[in-house]
């Protein structure tokens, strides 16, 4: 499916709420970028799309997840996987799509060794989901709707590997349910593409229908990119589009769009014409390279799949699926801000992954929703806890939060220890580190390590006297008016008390002592 319309088709008004010239992304000062996105997402079903083979093939020996159906054996027949249909409908609902009353599978005919039947079962004229949208946030604080043209269900192909002049075919992936989501050509910059993909991945993960792992090929993005002058836009015209494949990360998508737009704009600038071709992304050299020209474009001869009766989707079924939809990130973020008074920045980060939001909400439930409390938790999670996750985990996958030994309730306990002045915030950071590693209760760590805050004035005064006695030179300079040395003394006092001193109390006693010394001196 193609996302951007051909050069002759008319533009449709974009429902963008922010199309002020100031925010328009322009190449060479005058070319607008027009991008439509095709996203393929493997569905997290137990079995394949049309047979009972396990769809969980990652790491399995080649061709071990196969049967007569997904091998395309003579006489074998496909039977549609109901769970995959439901996952697609669920996604359609989350993408604000209309769910078709009747959806029809179709055969897409072409020959390739990783396509065992010689046709791919897909959907063509009658897809499951139509006419939806996804809202993305713009840097200027506004938001924009990227319209979804369609979302349909098909089967993945196998994998071909070329080794020493041979081609090896592994059909473990063949027949894995694949959802194709196609946007309208509403994306107007590399950053918008990035924002759209991030948002889409967040949604798919919330729904539990796709892992969002681009590097494993579970999610694949193919932007259709064209450029045009503002005059062309006024005439409702589009430039010639180029499809870019082989993109392995959202960052690559962003870079590829920027590169490709630049390339096309330069061609036009030099009086040339952009050719309708497929390009591949060369990650190493950060550029697009020609894959094949569309002159030899294949005629896929789509026709309705006679082996699978048309899918009737009745309203009660849709309602039952709708009832399984989780609270989606936008709604969650609004709730965090409105009900719990969170700042937008933290609300956004916390809702970017469902597992993070789940962790946060469990912690809030344990800690309480009194004014300021959810924000304080949010600060700890997005600050200290994320820092620890990044340091200890692989990459920056925040979903790891669900796998750490520390439970959300324990984080709430930790904050309560700070609130109750049992430990000071700095100690709490140390305790947190051990909690994340071991899952011990904060109270137990505080006791084991003797980290309880020192609030005994006699003990604090003794430490102060000791510090002042040990630093006569600094004391003299302080008395001479170098009051910024207060910080130095404070640090020394905290150190003397192994960081456990009640910082407020220590500071107060120190100031008093210095003042009395000054007046007495």
């Amino acid at each position, binding site marked *: 499916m193609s996302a951007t319309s051909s050069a002759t088709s008319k533009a449709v008004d974009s429902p963008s709420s922010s199309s002020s010239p100031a925010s328009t992304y322009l190449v060479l000062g005058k070319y607008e970028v027009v991008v439509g996105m095709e996203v393929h997402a493997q569905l997290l079903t137990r079995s394949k799309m049309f047979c009972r083979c396990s769809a969980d093939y990652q790491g399995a020996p080649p061709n071990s997840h196969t049967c*007569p159906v997904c*091998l*395309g*054996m*003579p*006489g*074998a*027949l*496909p*039977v*549609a996987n109901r769970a995959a249909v439901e996952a697609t409908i669920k996604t359609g609902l989350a993408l604000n799509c209309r769910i078709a009353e009747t959806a029809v599978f179709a*055969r897409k*005919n072409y*020959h390739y*060794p990783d396509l*065992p*039947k*010689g*046709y791919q079962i897909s959907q063509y004229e009658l897809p499951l989901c139509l006419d939806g949208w996804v809202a993305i946030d713009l840097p200027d604080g506004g938001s924009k709707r990227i319209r979804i043209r369609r979302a349909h269900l098909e089967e993945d192909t196998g994998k071909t590997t070329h080794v020493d002049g041979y*081609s090896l*075919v592994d059909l473990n992936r063949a027949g894995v349910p694949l959802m194709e989501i196609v946007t309208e050509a509403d994306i107007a910059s590399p950053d918008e593409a990035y924002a759209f993909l991030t948002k889409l991945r967040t949604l798919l993960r919330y729904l539990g229908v796709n892992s969002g792992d681009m590097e494993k090929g579970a999610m694949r993005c193919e932007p259709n990119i064209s450029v045009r002058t503002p005059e062309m836009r006024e005439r409702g015209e589009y430039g010639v589009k180029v499809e870019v494949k082989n993109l392995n990360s959202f960052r690559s998508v962003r870079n590829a769009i920027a590169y490709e737009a630049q390339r096309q704009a330069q061609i036009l600038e030099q009086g040339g014409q952009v050719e309708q071709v497929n390009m591949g992304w060369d990650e190493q050299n950060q550029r697009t390279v020609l894959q094949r020209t569309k002159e030899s474009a294949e*005629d896929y*001869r*789509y*026709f309705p799949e*006679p*082996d*699978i*009766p048309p899918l009737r989707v009745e309203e009660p079924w849709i309602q039952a699926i709708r009832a399984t939809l989780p609270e989606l990130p936008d709604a969650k973020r609004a709730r965090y801000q409105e009900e719990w008074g969170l700042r937008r920045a933290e609300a956004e980060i916390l809702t970017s992954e469902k597992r993070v939001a789940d962790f946060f909400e469990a912690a809030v439930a344990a800690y309480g929703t009194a004014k300021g409390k959810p924000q304080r938790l949010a600060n700890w999670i997005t600050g200290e806890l994320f820092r620890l996750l990044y340091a200890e985990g692989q990459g920056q996958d925040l979903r790891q939060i669900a796998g750490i030994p520390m439970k959300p309730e324990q984080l709430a306990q930790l904050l309560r220890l700070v609130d109750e002045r049992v430990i000071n915030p700095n100690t709490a950071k140390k305790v947190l580190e051990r909690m994340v590693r071991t899952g011990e209760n904060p109270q137990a760590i505080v006791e084991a390590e003797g980290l309880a805050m020192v609030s005994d004035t006699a003990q604090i005064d003794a430490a102060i006297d000791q510090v002042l006695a040990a630093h006569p030179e600094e004391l003299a300079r302080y008395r001479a008016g170098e009051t910024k040395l207060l910080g130095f003394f404070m640090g020394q006092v905290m150190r003397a008390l192994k960081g456990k001193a009640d910082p407020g109390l220590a500071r107060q006693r120190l100031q008093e002592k210095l003042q009395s010394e000054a007046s007495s001196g």
Partner: protein
Amino acid sequence: MTESQTHTPLPDLTIHQALAGLERGDLTAVELTQAVLARIQAVEDQIQAYLRVTAEQALAQAEEADRRRQQGERAPLLGIPLAIKDVLVTEGVETTCGSKILQGFIPPYTATAVARLEEAGAILLGKTNTDEFAMGSSTENSAYQTTRNPWDLERVPGGSSGGSAAAVAAGEALGALGTDTGGSVRQPAALCGVVGLKPSYGRVSRYGLVAYGSSLDQIGPITQDVRDAALLLNVIAGHDPLDGTSLPEPVPDYTAALTGEVKGLRIGLPEEYFVAGIQPEVEAAVRAAVAHLESLGAEVLPISLPNTDKALPVYYLIAPAEASANLARYDGIRFGYSAGAENLFDNYRLTRGQGFGPEVKRRIMLGTYALSAGYYDAYYLKAQQVRTLIREDFQRAFQQVDVIAAPTSPTTAFRIGEKIDDPLAMILTDIFTTSANLAGICAISVPCGFDSQGLPIGLQLLGPALGEEAILRVAHAYEQSTDWHKRRAQLPTSAS
């Protein structure tokens, strides 16, 4: 042996006669199977109904059947030797579909219909000849051999299930499975003087039937008489979770429909099926059969199926279109014949160029064309629209009548080679049969006489979707009050 069967050689028994004999202990499955294998031995050189005979396996199954019966087990077809058209996959037994491209293909699984026969105790004798991928009406399109009509060895047995029909007619099997995409069970049954039933679309699972025209293909029994057809249908019909197009409706006992009673049944006679070009003796025999049914108490009504003349062109767009995709998997990579060329494209080109015969290539090209950009609307889509009209013709007709009577084939068996170089003439032999496939309804062919050369003529009875009981009942009543079905072909060699 009971008196009535005393003079019937074992291979010529009907299935129900054999079952009765096995039940009484008059014969064993091993004796029966040995007798049929001996018949095959005796006549197969001349008939060439089988692509391969699995004698050893059949005898082992026969011994097993006898053992089970001795232990008191009863299964609907326990000990009955049957033949299977070679477009149905059989685990461990080479399945070629009459094509060079599947030479050496040993399927890793068994078709549902065949598995059900085996579960019911049937013995599998082997795989019967067929036009390549069931594309043809004479078996002359088989890449391996042309089957001869037991009634006249110079003539074709019909097709594409010609091997199965000839085997049953020659006593080389007590019954057989064929497949019917545009008449491929009914037409050879008519030409070989046996009974052939095409069930309603979805009544029998297609899982393991190597697809030709997926929206048209159905598996059906070919037997000596109507009761046998009902017995086989009882076993193979029913929902299969492996076929999304198989129907969930429960399967009745089809033999219960064989009451012999047709009083008050309304039989429609479509004017469009008695057209110029039909062999006069065929028309006369069919009209006489209808008159006979009327004499038995049925009511005969003239009806109209106005879109009948469009069935052939519609069929020859839809079936090849589906076939063009269905046959794409024969690419020389995973199974069957491979040209072993140096690069991928050459291997596709040479494997398919050498592996497929001319009729298959013709239909792949026809179907590819009909689906191509710029032609789809005019051909494939238009054909689907007309298909709906044909279906509606039958829906209207079945509001007036219970069954429709017509000839099965416009002619009796033609000579080998007579039409093979004239694809259009060959296609016209399907003129009365393709409509039932397009409409998804059921139909049966039952012997109704012989022409002046002693060649069998078939009466076709068509019923609505899932109306198998009605057509079986009428066919049975007709058969039991006539004796066409009792005549056997004079076999080339003295039979056992």
